[in-house]
């Protein structure tokens, strides 16, 4: 039990967390009365996480930016309906995820035909990062948007199954099985990664 932080440190972290939540709540309440600078404060606090949520769902950086902007716009319009006792971040990220899912559905692009042959060729040169990235993008594009979102949110962003379920509006079990299928699919398409990366 030596790896536990000292109690004083735990107390400080807890106090900092409480203060942070109180500051956020104050921003939310001010924003609900129409204070734009307060909403700007909320944008500052949440835009990075909102971007990672959106980026997990859509296929491109540009679409993720659009989803973030759409998400904040929807949140601003619906601010009156937000209850301050809720977690603002979870509420906002759900909205951003929905905006991203909308964009992903509109731009559903599947390029499965060329993949197997391309992916079968071994990646020998480490300098060919661009090619590797292209293969990864192509493999990700063959996943459904929900499976792609689940694998990125879980394996990249570290979200738990239940959190992913909340974000995407699906049961935890579905998130779990989506993750399994997405990993299997990616492993099949990028089977030689382990030996090359």
């Amino acid at each position: 039990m030596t790896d536990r932080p000292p109690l004083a440190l735990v107390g400080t972290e807890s106090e900092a967390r409480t203060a942070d939540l109180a500051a956020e709540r104050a921003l939310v309440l001010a924003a609900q009365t129409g204070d734009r600078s307060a909403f700007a404060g909320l944008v500052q606090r949440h835009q990075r996480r909102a971007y990672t949520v959106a980026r997990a769902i859509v296929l491109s950086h540009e679409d993720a930016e659009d989803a973030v902007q759409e998400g904040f716009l929807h949140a601003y319009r619906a601010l009156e309906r937000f209850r301050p006792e809720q977690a603002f971040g979870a509420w906002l990220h759900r909205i951003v995820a929905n905006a991203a899912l909308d964009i992903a559905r509109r731009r559903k692009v599947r390029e499965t035909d060329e993949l197997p042959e391309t992916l079968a060729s071994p990646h020998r040169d480490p300098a060919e990062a661009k090619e590797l990235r292209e293969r990864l993008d192509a493999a990700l594009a063959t996943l459904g948007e929900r499976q792609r979102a689940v694998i990125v949110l879980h394996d990249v962003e570290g979200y738990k199954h239940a959190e992913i379920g909340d974000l995407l509006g699906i049961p935890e079990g579905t998130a779990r099985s989506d993750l399994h299928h997405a990993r299997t699919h990616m492993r099949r398409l990028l089977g030689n990664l382990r030996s090359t990366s």
Partner: protein
Amino acid sequence: MKHGFKSDRSAGADPALSALLRGAYAPPAEDAYWERLEQRVLARLSDTPVTAWWNVLSEWRLIGAAAALLAVVLTGATIVRELSSAQTSSEMAAGAVIESGFSVDEATLTARGRRLPPDAPERYLEPFGY
């Protein structure tokens, strides 16, 4: 909300794939990028009012007034139409009676007052002894 990267250790995770995904999905690192994104978000909000309840009421005030005016006009039109229809019905009924083939003798039509039987005065003066 801070999420650790402990997922790699979960069953089925592929560290190589996770590392590759992390590289591909890394958010931009420059602060300038986030400042620009924030400005773009706020610029899009500039013509979006907060939907507070009083704003919602204000938005619906004009629509409500127009709906009320329309209701008054429709109600008035309905009343006028009903009155006109009732008048037409009574006129038609009167016309039907006049134009009907019901036979009325001339004396009835030309009589000015109430017609009494010939022995009426006696009956009136002695109602019990008549």
